[in-house]
């Protein structure tokens, strides 16, 4: 049934797309293995959606090669190819007046093989709203219906384009569970997101995109480790902290200050954490809201681009440091 685990599900080489003067995708190489969950990570406008839509065959590439499930677009077998993958598009709305189960039956009818409406409702935890109209669902439920449509043809490969943007944390968790279930059955997933924690939670490998290019690629762990084995100590302090003296510590790499907010980058060991805390105590600083954190993919993005990928309420703002 499924392809062999080592096989390649998606391969593209030197993929480019230009919109007017803007180079939306500037020569991308990717190789996504079957059974893998691969994340395309980056801020809005990084070229993630354009890349995915070129792979899906929705947007013609200006140049480059695409191989999807061993086939190429435009080779006369496009409909065969479309039988084998499912898509959730960004900003896609289905007909408001149709019941969820009617929507599933409709999408099921496009595919030769597939899952029954009852199976889809169960897979997506939507049994309780199967007889509700799509227009009356919550954002999270609508997104799961969209993924249900993508799964209606029992695909080998699933494309998800920012599936959790604008969803609350609980709805996001529910959606992640659906993706994990699909993967557990052997499916391949290509997901775009601007939530670093989403990529870390779901993906085997991640490519970080910025301005149409892939600027880093690897497992989330390896990407984080590429920063060096560091952790961050954050706190607020109304008392002045003597940064110069802090920087004398050998375990400390940098001090970042925004008003009363401090962020120290130190070696990833309990010993260095203790050293820093002792130094703060020596300076008679009383830190408020002290926390120690491992580095995240956000830090990787910051390190690579010099910009923060701050995510708030589902909106991505790329902030210049120190602003």
């Amino acid at each position, binding site marked *: 049934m499924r392809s062999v685990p080592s096989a390649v599900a998606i391969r593209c080489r030197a993929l480019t797309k230009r919109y007017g003067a803007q180079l939306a995708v500037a020569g991308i190489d990717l190789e996504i293995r079957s059974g893998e969950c691969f994340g395309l990570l980056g801020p809005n406008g990084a070229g993630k959606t354009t890349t995915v839509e070129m792979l899906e065959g929705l947007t013609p590439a200006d140049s480059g090669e695409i191989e999807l499930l061993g086939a190429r677009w435009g080779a006369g077998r496009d409909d065969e190819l479309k039988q084998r993958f499912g898509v959730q598009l960004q900003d896609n709305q289905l*007909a408001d007046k149709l019941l969820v189960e009617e929507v599933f039956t409709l999408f099921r*009818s496009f595919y*030769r093989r597939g899952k029954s409406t009852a199976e889809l409702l169960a897979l997506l935890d939507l049994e309780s709203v199967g007889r509700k109209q799509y227009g009356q669902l919550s954002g999270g439920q609508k997104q799961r219906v969209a993924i249900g449509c993508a799964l209606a043809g029992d695909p080998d490969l699933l494309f998800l384009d920012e599936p959790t943007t604008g969803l609350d944390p609980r709805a996001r968790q529910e959606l992640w569970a659906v993706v994990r279930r699909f993967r557990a059955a052997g499916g391949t997933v290509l997901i775009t997101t601007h939530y670093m924690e989403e990529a870390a939670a779901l993906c085997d490998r991640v490519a970080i995109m910025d301005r149409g290019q892939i600027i880093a690629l690897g497992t989330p762990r390896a990407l984080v480790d590429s920063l060096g084995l560091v952790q961050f100590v954050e706190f607020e302090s109304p008392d002045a902290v003597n940064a110069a003296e802090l920087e004398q510590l050998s375990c400390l790499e940098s001090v970042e200050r925004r008003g009363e907010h401090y962020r120290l980058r130190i070696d990833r060991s309990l010993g260095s954490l203790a050293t820093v805390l002792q130094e703060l105590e020596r300076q008679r600083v009383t830190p408020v809201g002290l926390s120690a954190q491992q580095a995240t993919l956000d830090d990787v993005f910051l390190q690579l681009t010099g910009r923060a990928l701050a995510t708030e309420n589902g909106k991505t703002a790329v902030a210049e440091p120190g602003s």
Partner: protein
Amino acid sequence: MSDPTGEARPNALWELTKARLREFAREKGTIFWVFGFPLLMAMALGLAFRSTPPERPRVALVLAPALAGESTAAESTAARAAQGLLQSPRLQTEQLSHEQALRDLARAKVDLVVEWDGDRPVYRFDPMQQRSALARALAADAQERALGRPDRLAIAEAPVSEHGSRYIDFLMPGLIGMNLMSSSMWGIGYSLVLARKRRLLRRFAVTPMKRSDFLLSYFLSRSFFLLIEIVVLLMFGRLVFGVEVRGSHALVLGVAFLGAAAFAGLGLLIGSRVENTEAASGWMNFVQLPMWLLSGTFFSYERFPGWLQTPARLLPLTALNDGLRGAFNDGGTLWQLRQPLLVLGAWCVVTFVTSGRLFRWY
């Protein structure tokens, strides 16, 4: 190839068509606008323009005081003539004073003043008013007859009040035509634009769905509602106003389908590129406006100046109305209706071919 669950694979065309039917039927507003509104309009216009006999012209009779006193003298010419006027069934005559009669004439309360002064009547009226001219002719006739003028010809009158020549008989086919225009154009064009705006077309384009199935489902669902629309309006016209189809019902249906197809083509043309619903509404109204004005739905376009009639005849709604009226009221045959049918066919070909070239899924 087989479904692992053993369930039969649903048919895509049927599912798409059902989805269209459901979306339409579950939209509260559309049911009213497609079915209720034309019925209300037919009701209102049918009652407003109900055929009533024309009002008889009103005549004010003024007799000089001297004559009035003599009215008992049966031999008096004026008295006999006045009697004729007062008894004429074709006129409403009342006797008024000179001043009152002139005042009423000025206010158009009467159409004619007949004033006897001496031995001849004076007819006062506005010759620009049709009814005044009629009143003058009828009054003269009534007075002459009263004085003994014989008729030289024995005239036989054959009053015509057949069904099929009343205003409502003219109106019903036009209302059906107009209804087909708006429901076909909106039903196809607007919903395509809406589907494009919601990126639904794009979503379908990444499935193996056959694109022909998708477009065909629009036409199947429209045809279904078209049948209902026509049956509802026909029944209404027949039950409420006694409007009957004098030609063949099959021809009425054929003309209606061809007309609806032409408008579906126009809707498809608008829906083939437009991306937002506001622009779609604008285009719909822009395309329909000349037809509201020129296609003779409410009043015959044959009253328009000659140079306007040819372009008016080329509009699809005019052709549809002419075709429907031909089949309804004149009992026309397919051959007699060839001109409007050709116009509709041409609209179909042009709009479908152009849409095929222009249509964008995303």
